[in-house]
């Protein structure tokens, strides 16, 4: 089992995400993370799916995804084939803040993006290992909420979306 990033280029069609996720459901495969948004081509969407399976399975998943009528193209990469980033937000109660937080923020290159009378929100971008490390430290500050995005990724391979949508 390995971690793979699947890219899916689709038409902006109602229900397309459902059609894609049921391919995973059917085989009893858990999606580790999923991100969907419009690509740089208007009307064309890009879905990034992170999944931990063996290579034979990821090939079949990609083939079946590509078979979905409104999917323009689907392909998969190993972690080494993509440049990716994730974003995490940490909500901390003001009541627990102390002088140690400044060093933590500096060491992790995190930033404060909101400060309210009751709480502050820190933001950190980075791979899962890094955002998880900060989470462990911030648990000592009585963390109120934590949210992490799915993977936003680009392939290292020199292929552009235009070669599929035209």
């Amino acid at each position, binding site marked *: 089992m390995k971690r793979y990033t699947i890219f899916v280029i*689709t038409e902006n069609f*109602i229900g397309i995400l*459902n059609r894609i996720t049921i391919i995973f459901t059917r085989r009893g495969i858990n999606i580790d993370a999923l991100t969907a948004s419009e690509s740089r081509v208007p009307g064309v969407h890009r879905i990034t799916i992170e999944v931990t399976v063996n290579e034979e399975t990821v090939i079949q998943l990609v083939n079946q995804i590509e*078979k979905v*009528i*409104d999917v323009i193209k689907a392909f998969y990469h190993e972690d080494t084939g993509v440049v990716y980033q994730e974003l995490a937000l940490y909500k901390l109660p003001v009541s627990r803040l102390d002088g140690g937080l400044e060093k933590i923020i500096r060491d992790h290159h995190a930033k404060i993006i909101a400060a309210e009378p009751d709480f502050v929100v820190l933001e950190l971008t980075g791979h899962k290992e890094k955002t998880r490390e900060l989470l462990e430290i911030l648990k000592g500050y009585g963390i109120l909420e934590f949210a992490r995005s799915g993977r936003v990724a680009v392939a290292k391979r020199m292929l552009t979306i235009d070669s599929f949508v035209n």
Partner: protein
Amino acid sequence: MDKNLRGADMVVRSLIAEQADLIFGYPGGAIMPVYDALYDYHDQIKHVLTRHEQGAIHAAQGYARVSGKVGVCLATSGPGATNLITGLADALIDSTPLVCITGQVAAHLLGSDAFQETDMVGISMPGTKWNIQVRRVEDIAPAIAKGFYIARSGRPGPVLIDITKNAQVDFGTFRYEPCLGFRSYKTHHPVDPISVHQAATLIDKAERPYLLFGQGVILGQAEAALKQFLDKSGIPAASTLLGSGALPQDHSNFVGKLGMHGNYAPNLLTNQCDVLIAVGMRFDDRVTGDLSRYAKQAKVIHLELDPSEINKNVKATVAIQGDCKESLTLLTEAISPKIHDTWMANFRSLEKQEKEAVVNLDLTPTKPGLTMGEVIHHINKYKADDAVLVTDVGQHQMIAWRYFNYKKPRTQITSGGLGTMGFALPAALGAQLHDYSRQVICVVGDGGIQMTIQELGTIKQTKAPVKIVLLNNNYLGMVRQWQQMFFDKRYSFTELDNPDFVKLSEAYGIKAQKVSERADLKEAIEDMLIYDGPFFLEVVVEKEDNVFPMIATGSSVEEVRLR
């Protein structure tokens, strides 16, 4: 172009534009405007009212399978639509082109649990090739055009179009433009000449090459290309369940049928060939048995249109993706002519073993009870060359398939992938309504026929001259066989206390006869086949007969048993 047309009329006009001359359906609240429109176009499009929506979709499947055209069915929202689900799943797994149009509650009621509202797009998603909800009148014609294109092109499949009631009653401008393709869906994949060359090299070097063909040959209209390839290559060829009919069974290269209840030699010798050529088939588990012991010794050449089928179950040494008519033609050009007499003799000698151990006992039995096999044997004697055999699911299906003499493509209609009991009667109706003059023989069991027996009413009303042959053993025979073989004869809920089928048929106004004695069988079949109109023949067969050969679940093809 029509400037002011009602949505419901657009639906019907779009169907007419797609040459749908015969459709099947059942009316109800949310589809009533379309039914109202049908009233005006009855001279251009014929609608058949079935007795259940499942009957409508199986009839549309039967129509599509026999004609090669897109089958169409109509249903209302909610329960009408959900009754289509089995047929959709069946058509998807058996690659049958369908367009199903369902009514839906008005757009402003969507999501509110309105009367007869079901999330039909959501429910049908895993069972359709494509589906869409249409909520605006202007989207009706483009959706239907796209639906037909998707259903019939590439690897065919079912499409569902869910149309809200407001879209059916609103007015708009109608101009029908057929769909000719769109960017996310490529139907043609040029055959790669390098893989053709690699495959030809393997075939030329092969000493024991073996070809398996499936329904892809029929869907791709590659029957002649297959025959030419076999004639030149001299390679023995076996068919899958749905591939039957793609090659006439009297062709000298034809060695029989594959799978759990297929023939002895074709299964056994799969594990002795050195090159295995699979054409338009998908290595279903009922064909392969235990995959880890399937054709491991062979180099595999897979000719397949659908890329997701390549390397799915069996790894291909050489995959030729694309239309099999094209790839078979190129492959035939690339290979050298050969004969494989010694290898072919292996098939023939095992065929002889099967004949002695199984076939003779099935076709010309000496024990008192009638066998399913002898019924099919008599049908073969009197049937037309292009007779269509429609079967349900179970022992009778396997026996009928094993012994029916297939001579033409599109004469085999059965539920292969899904194994849907209740499929045969409505599918036979659909096949018959495509052509009243064609001989359509529907072979069913006493379990399956009762799942959709209400369609006798549709047969009565349409006067479709279907010949129904009920092989009655008062059991769910295939399940009983498994209980006998694998569950210690614990016959748990497989025995049936059946109605008087003859009286039942007669109540529907269908001529019926019952045969229990061997002496009456031959004449009864002859009478049935020449009868002008629908006919119901019940044959009481041996209660506890089993279908052999058999590859038990989890066994290897080489463990195929004759007893």
